[in-house]
């Protein structure tokens, strides 16, 4: 697979014109994804059907809903007059697909005798559910049955606060990791890369597709990071480096990143599908109690690994020659160039390492939540809030700002912000920081307008 990608890139290297190579790059990315996505999704049935799912209501260590499928339950679909249309038994995913003659009113009934021993339907979930003709939004209408008690959180306030902070730290570390590249690319080239979220998703996608083909996630993750770095490399080499050379304005380049974002996002939607999917390894872990917080081993590992990676990034930036050169270029390109730093090489390295870090962040986010085609897009705005807070263009600012935003977003629910709106405080931070201190907490006071 890698050889194929490398081969395609080598083939691309022979060409000269910017746009043409970009098209070829896109083809290469597409070929890579197609090849990885080789295990094709089964074609959907042509006619209407009812998908019945039986789930055991549980919550995971974080208090998030984590329903478990229930297999071996008999299901019957009846039409309006009570005549039987079809029957089935749920598979190991807790689901069964029953074909129906068309969009009409049906009754779905499950046989309570076939539920696992000692289990009963939840109080809110009757054994019979009505399906009306106009509730078929697509050809497949899903009907859910729940067993077990409805779970509700019953933890003390301290535990809730500690739990939210633990989640916030994890999100903050991931956002910080993803936004280093975004901030440094801005600092060195002035480009606001709206496709950066897609670089995050890219990492998770590659890891997922490899994982889906039987590669363990521990091996898939580094491969995804390498692939992410290669994508960053080709973005710069076959795209933005040429645009800079051709003198295409920053605004035009920014619109190009919008186009890239639209394109990649829809490519993911096409190849991956619209549903969230978890990695195959380390799912359904039971949390362990550490002090006031309950955390799964997986999430703990992600947190620690993310912290280590960020410390390494910070030390690299602070002490190595490359790190110093990066900060110099990000501070003032012309001045850095005049001291003998090859700024276009530094920019290339920033693209590669920034995209690789974003890909790693995507894998971590995929482990933490699940993989979806728009996971990066939804993080992008938090990343912007983070790097603005930290100081646009500053490397350490991205680390600090991203971390603070992640923690604030997760802990804002403690202050009564509804979970569905927990991203909103990030906007408030963004606006306040721009009003009060537009250079960000770590940015140097200078004229930014």
């Amino acid at each position, binding site marked *: 697979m890698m050889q194929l990608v490398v081969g395609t890139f080598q083939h691309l290297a022979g060409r000269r014109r*910017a*746009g043409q190579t*970009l*098209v070829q790059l*896109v083809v290469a990315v597409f070929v890579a994804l*197609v090849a990885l996505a*080789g295990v*094709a*999704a089964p*074609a*959907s049935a042509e006619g209407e059907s009812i998908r019945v799912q039986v789930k055991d209501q549980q919550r995971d260590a974080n208090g998030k809903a984590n329903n478990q499928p229930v297999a071996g339950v008999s299901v019957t679909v009846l039409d309006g007059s009570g005549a039987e249309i079809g029957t089935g038994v749920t598979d190991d995913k807790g689901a069964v697909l029953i074909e129906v003659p068309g969009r009409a009113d049906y009754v779905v009934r499950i046989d309570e005798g076939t539920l696992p021993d000692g289990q009963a339907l939840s109080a809110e979930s009757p054994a019979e559910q009505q399906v009306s003709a106009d509730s078929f939004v697509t050809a497949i209408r899903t009907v859910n049955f729940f067993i077990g008690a409805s779970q509700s959180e019953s933890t003390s306030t301290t535990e809730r606060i500690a739990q939210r902070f633990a989640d916030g730290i994890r999100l903050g570390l991931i956002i910080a990791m993803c936004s280093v590249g975004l901030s440094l690319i*801005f600092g060195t080239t*002035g480009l*606001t890369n*709206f496709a950066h979220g897609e670089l995050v998703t890219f990492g998770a996608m590659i890891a997922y597709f490899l994982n889906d083909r039987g590669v363990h996630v521990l091996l898939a993750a580094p491969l995804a990071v390498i692939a992410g770095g290669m994508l960053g490399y080709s973005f710069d080499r076959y795209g933005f480096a040429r*645009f800079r050379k051709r003198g*295409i*304005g*920053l*605004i*035009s*380049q*920014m*619109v*190009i990143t*919008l*186009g*890239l*974002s*639209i*394109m*990649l*996002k*829809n*490519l993911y*939607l*096409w190849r991956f599908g619209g549903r969230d999917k978890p990695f195959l390894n380390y799912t359904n872990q039971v949390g362990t109690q550490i002090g006031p917080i309950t955390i799964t081993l997986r999430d703990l590992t992600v947190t620690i690994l993310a912290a280590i990676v960020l410390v390494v990034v910070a030390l690299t930036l602070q002490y190595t020659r490359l790190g110093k050169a990066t900060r110099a270029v990000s501070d003032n390109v012309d001045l850095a160039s005049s001291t003998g730093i090859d700024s276009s090489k530094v920019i290339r390295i920033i693209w590669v390492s920034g995209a690789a870090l974003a890909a790693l962040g995507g894998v971590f986010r995929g482990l933490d939540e699940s993989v979806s085609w728009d996971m990066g*897009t939804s993080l992008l*705005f938090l990343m*912007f*809030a983070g790097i*603005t807070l930290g100081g*646009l263009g500053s490397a350490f600012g991205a680390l600090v700002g991203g971390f603070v935003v992640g923690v604030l977003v997760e802990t804002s629910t403690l202050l009564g912000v*509804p979970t*569905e*709106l927990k*991203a*909103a405080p*990030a*906007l408030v931070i*963004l*606006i*306040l920081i*721009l*009003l009060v201190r*537009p250079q960000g907490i770590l940015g140097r006071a200078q004229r*930014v*307008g």
Partner: protein
Amino acid sequence: MDIGGVLENTILQFIGFNACYYAIAAIGLNVQFGFTGLLNFGQAAFMAAGAYGVGQTVTIFGISLWWGVGIGIAYAVFLGLLMGMPTLRLRADYLAIVTIASAEIVRLVVRSVKFRDQFGGTDGLSGFASAYQGVGVDLGLQPAGEYGFWIFTFSGRNLWNLLVGWSLVAIFGLIVWRLMKSPWGRVLKAIREDEDAVRSLGKNVYSYKMQALVLGGVIGSFAGMMLALGNANVQPDNFSRDLTFFVLTGLVIGGVAKVTGSIVGPMLFWAIYAFLDSLLRELVDKPVRIGDFTLIQSTDIGSVVFMVMGLLLILLMVYRPQGLFGNKKEMAFEGR
């Protein structure tokens, strides 16, 4: 293969309702992006402001639909001030970030359970447009009647939407065209080219930028109103980030800083979209497979077409940043 059907769809989308409200939104975006150089990447939020303004009147506030125009404008002005105040004194990128973020938050708020009583949650709002449709009936367009000739045959309801929509396009097109020829418009263009030079001439750049942002936003809110009235409902997920991007793509196709560009561009956007979509639907009537690998099936067509639209945007910016009608010099501003 039904080539005729593909072409018919293409032509109908070229002059269709989608192209029409996109054109209104693009005229507004052009005031900000094309003429003033403001990077408003949150036009969807302004459209949502207009749409929810009219949507809320009958269903939430219980007042006449026509107040909705005022409410929509008020929402848009408020949004413009909110986005503009922290950012317009700063470098151009900050506005881009804040607008894109605000648009996302606006969408999250209107679809949230928390504010369901104000904005209708994920179901959105409906059942407010009868007064608007009533005017069409009073003018003699029967909702179920058929009007027109050849392939241009519309139901009375659609024809009414198209008439109102394209009239709005014409009105706003004329207003903006006239404004940009005025001294006020020349200041805006000068700000786009060199802000400091304009400042040194004693103009209040911040105020001009704010006026442009708000004016563009208000025009954008009319696009949202038109969308709400035409569909007779408001759906929160219509106002996603992609809406802004597609309006922008339309504008870039036509050419920025030209009123004709902002009208013809969205029409072409929808024509290209309809062409690709219907063509693919003709070609992929059953899943295309290579071995057991499904390359494309009918449910994939939407994302494939949008992928191509994204690619189109990239190619345009590389090879013809001025679009069809634009002037290359007017797309060369740096924004920092």
